[in-house]
């Protein structure tokens, strides 16, 4: 009996695999589709961002194909789940590279990017990091390029703004104790101090705790003029709420994780004066973005989580389309090696949501940083730092 049951399981698994493969094979278009991969967290704690970003990329693919694709070839995106876990990311990229044989893929979340870098380099497939911001990404090898500015762009901009524009002397830094928090906090401290300021408190808080009193009291006693919080969208509101409740009235700055209307909504009046940075212009500054946001509201009934990130993800298929187009025109085979070469050769891209993108030889991109301040419950632009 158990033999039969066990066979059933094996048969089920095999059937599922076959179904998947035939489904993929039967998706034929008139001209051969141009494939690329996308590995995003679709489940897990980061899925609130990952799923929205994947959706933005899908919309871009639909829009591109509606306009005729790339020289008549439809663009095809193969989407896999990483849960922002390096091991699953490696699995996903392995699949994309050896089963789906894509010459280029996109992914995000610094730990995943770092984990899949060796695969991209070994198999000579172009890996695009879209949204991860660890500065180490620039040094992960020949085949890893970021299309999103790394942390040392927007965090530094915040530090400079605090020092040079707001003339703050004493900064306190609060950060979540994970890789993005640790790295971001370090960058802020270095930037602030290199500009002559003094970091009077530098406290970490645990990812799992909801009571930050101890760290916040240390910040309070250190008497800063400005407090920079390097947290995630899930803990940021709590940290700010407790800061205000403990009587700290100093201005609070954070990076793009704070650029989320949910944060303002949950904090109510306590959000006033919050300074956030974003690496993409807002809907008020760019009409296309307003359209994008409207589209979200119509189809999903809300605005996307992490709007700037979704903008970059929307632009990614356009960038890939440009690369494909370049190779098709030159008549070159569509391999990873040539994809990378195309990226280097083309270098400058005009993308619908985020504007001009220049891919540097140092594997970095430079973008202006848009600073916003919460006034009357809304994000008002205050400065743009180049």
């Amino acid at each position, binding site marked *: 009996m158990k033999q039969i049951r066990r066979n059933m399981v094996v048969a089920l698994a095999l059937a599922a*695999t076959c179904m*998947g493969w035939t489904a993929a094979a039967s998706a034929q278009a008139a001209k051969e589709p141009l494939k690329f991969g996308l590995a995003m967290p679709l489940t897990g704690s980061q899925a609130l961002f990952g799923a929205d970003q994947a959706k933005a990329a899908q919309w871009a693919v639909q829009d591109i194909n509606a306009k005729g694709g790339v020289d008549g070839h439809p663009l095809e995106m193969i989407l896999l*789940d990483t849960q922002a876990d*390096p091991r699953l990311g490696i699995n996903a990229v392995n699949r994309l590279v050896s089963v789906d044989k894509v010459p280029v893929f996109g992914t995000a979340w610094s*730990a995943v990017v770092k984990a899949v870098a*060796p695969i991209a380099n*070994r198999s000579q497939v172009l890996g695009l990091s879209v949204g991860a911001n660890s500065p180490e990404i620039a040094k992960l090898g020949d085949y890893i390029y970021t299309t999103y500015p790394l942390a040392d762009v927007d965090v530094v901009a915040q530090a400079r703004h605090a020092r040079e524009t707001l003339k703050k002397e004493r900064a306190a830094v609060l950060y979540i104790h994970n890789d993005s928090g640790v790295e971001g906090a370090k960058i802020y401290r270095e930037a602030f101090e290199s500009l002559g300021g003094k970091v009077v408190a530098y406290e970490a808080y645990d990812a799992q705790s909801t009571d930050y009193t101890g760290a916040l009291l240390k910040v309070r006693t250190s008497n800063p003029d400005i407090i920079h919080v390097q947290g995630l969208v899930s803990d940021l509101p709590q940290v700010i709420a407790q800061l205000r409740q403990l009587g700290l009235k100093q201005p609070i700055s954070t990076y793009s994780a704070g650029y989320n209307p949910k944060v303002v909504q949950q904090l109510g009046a306590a959000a006033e004066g919050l300074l956030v940075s974003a690496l993409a212009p807002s809907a008020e500054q760019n009409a296309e973005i307003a359209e994008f946001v409207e589209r979200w509201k119509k189809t999903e009934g809300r605005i996307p989580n992490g709007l700037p990130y979704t903008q970059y993800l929307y632009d990614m298929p356009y960038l890939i389309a440009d690369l494909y187009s370049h190779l098709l025109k030159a008549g070159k085979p569509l391999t990873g090696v040539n994809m990378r070469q195309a990226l280097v050769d083309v270098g400058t891209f005009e993308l619908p949501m985020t504007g001009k993108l220049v891919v540097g030889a140092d594997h970095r991109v430079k973008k202006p940083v848009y600073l916003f301040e919460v006034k009357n419950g809304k994000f008002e632009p205050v400065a743009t730092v180049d």
Partner: protein
Amino acid sequence: MEYVASLLVLIGLYVILASSFNLIIGFGGLISIAHPIFFALGAYTVGVLSTQFGLHPVPSIAAGFVVAMLASFMLSLPSLRISGDYLLITSIGFQLGLLEIIKNLDFVGGASGLGGIPNVVQQHRSLVFAAVALGLAVAVVLSLRALVRGPYGRAIQAMRDDELAFLALGRNAMNIKIAIFAVGSGLAGVAGGLYAYYYQYLTPDQFQILQSAMILTMVVVGGMGSVYGPVVGAVLLLLLPEAITFLNLPSSVMGPLQGVIFTSLVILFLFLRPQGLVPSSKRLSAGGSHE
């Protein structure tokens, strides 16, 4: 195909992990969930030795084995002397505490992880790793089988089934427990070393309690207390999620739906075969007729 080879590497690694965990928990009756920390210690040892000192893979992995084994003494000696029941508690503290320490130490990369582990196989990389992983897995399973069927194995079972009688016969349970724990943990360390060389990047988050749960599920679903049970469990619980991703589900619910399908299947297995997919040939489950 590279993809198949990478799956085989994972299968090999997890067979080693599940089997060694089964040795500790299924045969030895030592309820500890700290297995992933020994996996981590082996991986980080290899990571540090290869990045800082450029040591050759074989001595590095051997060092991983030794480090994991020595660490197991740090856990087993104090805990087992008190009582076997409290091993569970101390193992939680041990695993999470060591991971916190790793997260705070810069020379192992801290929370950002340890990357840049050199690639030690240039040609046919995945195939070589798959062969080594599977080879080691086979070796481990066969050695465990020999151990269990031999006189030492009978001693272990006797100790687990009725420790009082065992002690009354003058056997030293403590030494056997510590030895089992050390061997099981050392093997996890070896798997860790291999893991480090294959993936070339480690983060502390990969070795958390979730990993303990996954390995434990493999052992339980496969059949605790049988030699081949963990093998079946490892293969099944690794291939099943992969197979599900080939189902081409609508992408708006793809992620969670895959999880729903996978967990439903595991629950189904637990209902169909609560003793595990591979029955233990003798009465090896601890405690017999509990509720």
